[in-house]
């Protein structure tokens, strides 16, 4: 399906960073964007840094350092900082096999964890490699939540200030150039129609745009509850004198839904004056336990974010 182009649609961006508050569905939105990108003909890799899950929670494939092929045009990968450091060293230092044993030492692990931003820079370096290499047209980064994401965005600049010369400086420079280049990188913020999540998204948007001058938008508003009833209808339903148990439960469902819609509407009003471009994604009500259920969920999400994903020209 070819989506109508909008001003905020992605075009040639190689790196799409999906972030937002914890629990708003970043992984779902990132997976949807990656899947839609692949459908649009872009060879896409979905990348996470998350070290805890052995398998991708929605794609149900193993998460490994080497991109794992999910389907035609779509791969998934987990960038592990230690492996990123090792790859960096092997590439940048001749005769580094000499140091292989060193990676296993406690001193090295301590150092890697202690040097400010070192692991983060190595992970960003791997994202850079994927985004600028020939294997993929697009990297969709299922990024950490707000706090850690801010730290990640700081890292190249901090490194450039701390280390004036050498390979680390060179590496940080490349990454910084990629992130700041609006033709190659875009941050897509995800939120839900709740006041605190929206507040956090707006703060993060200002941070990306004003502090770092990174291209950001649109704001993906996930889990919008359908607005099916008027207040009058709900009042009439809840005052029905006689109803069976099932009908009572159904009326409660309708009333709860209406209450949630009103709360979401009030939260969304906060976005009114901000000029943010919005991409609304409805709450997708379906089980996602079995593999086929997850696949259906991803397909539905991909459909909803397809207007964001530019097709190959």
């Amino acid at each position, binding site marked *: 399906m070819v989506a109508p182009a909008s001003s905020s649609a992605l075009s040639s961006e190689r790196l799409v960073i999906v972030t937002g508050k914890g629990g708003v569905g970043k992984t779902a939105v990132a997976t949807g964007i990656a899947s839609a990108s692949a459908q649009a003909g872009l060879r896409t890799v979905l990348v996470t840094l998350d070290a805890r899950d052995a398998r991708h929670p929605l794609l149900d494939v193993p998460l490994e350092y080497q991109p794992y092929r999910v389907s035609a045009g779509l791969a998934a990968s987990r960038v592990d900082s230690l492996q990123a450091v090792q790859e960096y060293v092997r590439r940048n*230092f001749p005769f580094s096999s000499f140091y292989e044993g060193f990676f296993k030492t406690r001193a090295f692990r301590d150092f890697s964890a202690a040097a400010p931003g070192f692991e983060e820079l190595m992970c960003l370096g791997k994202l850079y490699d994927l985004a600028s290499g020939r294997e993929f047209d697009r990297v969709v980064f299922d990024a950490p939540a707000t706090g850690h994401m801010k730290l990640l965005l700081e890292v190249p600049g901090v490194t450039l200030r701390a280390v004036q010369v050498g390979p680390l400086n060179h590496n940080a420079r490349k990454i910084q150039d990629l992130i700041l280049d609006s033709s190659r990188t875009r941050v897509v913020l995800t939120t839900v129609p709740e006041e605190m999540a929206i507040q956090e998204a707006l703060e993060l948007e200002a941070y990306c745009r004003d502090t770092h001058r990174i291209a950001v938008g649109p704001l993906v508003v996930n889990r919008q509850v359908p607005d099916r009833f008027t207040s009058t209808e709900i009042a009439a339903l809840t005052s029905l004198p006689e109803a069976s148990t099932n009908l009572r439960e159904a009326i409660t469902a309708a009333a709860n839904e209406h209450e949630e819609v009103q709360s979401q509407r009030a939260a969304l009003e906060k976005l009114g004056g901000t000029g943010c471009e919005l991409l609304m994604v409805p709450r997708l009500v379906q089980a996602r336990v079995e593999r086929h259920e997850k696949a259906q969920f991803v397909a539905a999400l991909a459909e909803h974010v397809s207007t964001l994903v530019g097709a190959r020209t």
Partner: protein
Amino acid sequence: MTSHLQLERTVAEQRIIICCGSGGVGKTTTGAALGVLAARQGRSALVMTIDPAHRLAQAMGLAALGHEPEPVAVDAPGSLAAMMLDTKRTFDKLVEQYAPSSQVREAIFANEYYRQLSSSLGGSRELVAMERVLEAVNEEGYDLLIVDTPPAHHALDFLDAPGRLIDLIDGSLTSMLVKPYGLAARAQFNLFRQSSAMTLKFMERLTGFEMLADLSEFLLAFSSMFDGFKERSHRVMELMREPSTTFLLICAPEESSLQQVGQFQARLRGENLGIAGVLVNRVHVCDPEAGDLDGGALSTLSQMTVEGRPLAGLVDRVEAAYAEHRILGAADARAMQGLMGGDLPVRTVPHFRRDLHSMFDLEAFAEVLG
């Protein structure tokens, strides 16, 4: 068999409640609501949050929270106060307390590495959070401290973090770095150049000399305060092991969140730490017996009018809302099946359909918890 987590009792009996959980599960709001619950019981509660997004302040309807406890207006016989944990300020205070001399103190404050570390290095926020808890428990005379932990991907991060920082300062890296670079930073860079340590040379090539020298200077200065730090962290661990301290795991009814419960429980038991139980927020509750609407119900709906006018399509819309309600309820029940068979006390909190952004909402939430 699963028992019911009685939060009123937890709040009445404990002295410290540490709220753990991954990001976005409602930790901050739950912590604040537990504070309200305690105040209702006549206790004097302090809610401490680490979150940089000032969300607790928002939940309490306050414009901003400070580093010092601020009283929160609550209609209850007890009292409630809230504060933000400021990592940098608490860390600075520790340095002031333990630095053996003013030179060491100034060297640490001026160190580029320290400036970044004290707010961003993994583990520093958690260590400092517990440090502040230690201070509050000793000095400020609250009956109950409710500690909100930093946003983490995993509930266990909070427990792992302080140890990582201590290990780092105590570790082989320090002994390796402190000698050559410590001298180099003070005297001749050449001294370092002559160091035969292959590892150091390699790390230097990897990162550049400035970075290692800075790190070395920091570790050198810090190692002089190490005993003080270690003693503090020891007391923090003791405090966490007290029977009056308990951990509360907060989850969402989702696979990824609930998978952490087992690991969390095993870890706390292994370390001899108390667990209050698991609180699952935002659960869609639906009567499992609820079935399709029968002919009678459908005809009742189709005959409904408002001011004499029929309601177009009402039957379909109610059926659609009902169907989604049942699917959500069944999905959450299925996700929680494993948890319900376990031996931890569990409390499920129904999905709150309103945003919690005022004291009024928070009190309503406390009502649900109590």
